[in-house]
């Protein structure tokens, strides 16, 4: 057992499956010799060969479409999109084929494939390297969208994603690739998909987040505790399909909700969760549902990105406002 970072956990999970399942194959731009621009695939080509860890040509639609073709033959491709900002040429293949093959063939052809992409802001990257567009994928039936927030979850959820019989979009919060380490046993044990994780139990307010923002959210919960506010913190983890039961249960307990996300507010996952709560637990609500979000504007270049992204302070402000609501 060793303390590893989130990106090392992603690497370890892929290595585990490459080792134990000969159908697993990994490809994408720069994933081979270079080990990925973030080193997510570091060492894997050396260990598993150029046949199974493949530097592909530079074309995202091709990468996704190849995964569809290979998965239909029973391979288990893990395809990397170098950054989520460059996934758009591939959405045609992902939405029209990956998400639908099982449905359109009544189960004859199934696609056990994973598409990985680093996403989110906060690393002072150039344009298109910092967006959080997870909502676009979560709106498409037939896909699962999974976002780990820490190393153990990255390991367990990546294993589950690879083994899942259906296509999984696996989004990695790159800002936290290396900021925390967890003791993770490399034992091949997966975590459940479609399950929220309750990271902190509390009775006064439910803070809901996923990905990198979990870190700000947990910090905010600690600060609130110091103020005497006992926050429950939920990591959604699988943002589609969402485990609403866990969320609704918490809301029934606390009656107050603050959702925290990096993405623009309009039409976001935060909106979806709020709408579900408004539909199914409105009687439990003691205050309006708060959404702390990125703004409804283009992700700015990095000089302004700090001002764009939700901070612990913004979460605290919103949570206090919600708590004060009578």
């Amino acid at each position, binding site marked *: 057992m060793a303390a590893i970072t989130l990106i090392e956990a992603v690497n370890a999970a892929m290595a585990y499956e490459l080792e134990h399942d000969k159908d697993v194959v990994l490809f994408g731009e720069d994933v081979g010799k270079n080990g990925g621009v973030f080193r997510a695939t570091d060492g894997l080509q050396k260990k598993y060969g150029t046949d199974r860890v493949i530097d592909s040509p530079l074309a995202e*639609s091709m990468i996704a*479409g190849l995964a569809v*073709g*290979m998965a239909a033959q029973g391979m288990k491709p893990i395809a990397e999109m170098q950054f989520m900002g460059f996934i758009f040429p591939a959405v045609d293949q992902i939405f029209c084929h990956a998400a639908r093959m099982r449905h359109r063939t009544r189960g004859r052809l199934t696609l056990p494939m994973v598409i990985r992409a680093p996403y989110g802001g906060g690393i002072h990257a150039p344009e298109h390297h910092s967006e959080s567009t997870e909502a676009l994928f979560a709106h498409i039936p037939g896909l699962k969208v999974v976002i780990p927030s820490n190393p153990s979850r990255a390991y367990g959820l990546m294993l589950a994603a690879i083994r899942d019989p259906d296509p999984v979009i696996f989004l990695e919060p790159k800002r936290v690739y290396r900021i925390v380490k967890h003791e993770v046993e490399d034992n091949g044990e997966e975590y459940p998909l479609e399950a929220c994780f309750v990271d902190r139990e509390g009775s006064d307010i439910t803070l809901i987040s996923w990905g990198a923002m979990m870190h700000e959210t947990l910090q905010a919960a600690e600060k609130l505790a110091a103020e005497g506010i006992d926050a429950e913190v939920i990591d959604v983890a699988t943002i589609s*399909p969402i485990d609403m039961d866990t969320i609704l249960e918490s809301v029934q307990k606390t009656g107050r909700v603050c959702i925290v996300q990096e993405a623009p507010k309009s039409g976001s996952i935060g909106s979806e969760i709020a709408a579900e709560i408004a539909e199914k637990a409105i009687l439990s609500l003691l205050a309006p549902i708060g959404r702390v979000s990125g703004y409804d504007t283009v992700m700015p270049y990095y000089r302004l990105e700090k001002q764009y992204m939700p901070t612990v302070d913004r979460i605290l402000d919103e949570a206090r406002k919600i708590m004060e609501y009578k």
Partner: protein
Amino acid sequence: MTTTTVASFEIKYHQYLDPQGKPTQELPAFAKDMDKMRQLYRDMALLRAFDAKAYALQRTGKMGTYPASLGQEAIGIGYGDAMTAEDVLIPYYRSTGAMLKHGITMEEILLYWGGDESGSNYSVAKEDFPICVPIANQIIHASGVAKAIQMRGQKRAVATEIGEGGTSEGDFYEGINVAGIWNLGVVFMVNNNQWAISVPTEIQTACETYAQKAIAAGIEGVQVDGNDIIAVKQVAEYAFEKARNGGGPTLIEAITYRLCDHTTADDASRYDDPKVKEEAWKNEPMVRLRKYLEANKAWSDKDEEAMKAEIAKEVDAAVKAYEEAPKPGPELMFDHLYAELPELTKPQREAAIKLAEKARGAK
């Protein structure tokens, strides 16, 4: 170096029978086997009869939009005949000929165009892809399937087809490009029927040939007379053999003419010149092959009659099976979305079933 030529390329065109059914060069062996040639003629006739029936079903409200293959039968039947059961077909919406040849049944095809996903749950060709409607995506799928086959060391080829209009899509190029780099066993058929719905081929490309698009992928590209089934089959057999044996991909442009509307939803008279179409009818593939068979005393009016009767029966049986197929229930909207339906969606499934029951009750 100074100013020098660093690469040069040629595109070849192949034809064996002219429009009068006369050989234009030494024929391949299979073309001298009259049983084989009769069978290919029958295959084309079946496709034409099936198309006509499908059209009629659409016109009488019994089926949805349908794209016929009229005039283009030699392509799908020709390369379909060059495939083995182990090969994999990745069809587009106008691949009916190859689909029939590869074991996809008429009933399945009718169900598909009749708005029922069960039409893509093939009973025989279990690894073949369903019809690809978004243009050109299938080209990449074919390369993906071929990559899996290559990784497993199997000797199987992959066939896919696209219209000449579809070659303008980025996916077409990305798919052939990777097939070139990875030396994948794919046969890329381009059905150049001169039209992309209403858009003529001169609006689609500045190229003299579609075959030359292969050059951008560093792969072999050839052109055939797509109305000459001998040429189509001969070049396709070469390409499939090559594909199965590690020789890599081939792009085959088959030149033909779409003698029908784009689909039942189209009216080609809005844009197609009747004189050009009339000319094109003179080149269509069935008359040509029939003339060849007749010249070889391998076909008679009686044969034609007998065949037509047989085919009509087969098609009618398929239509009957289609019409009698059970109607899909609302649960099928959900049951194949994922291996397991998410908790969140279960109540939607129940609601849909209840609504359907209520609607049935109300009738």
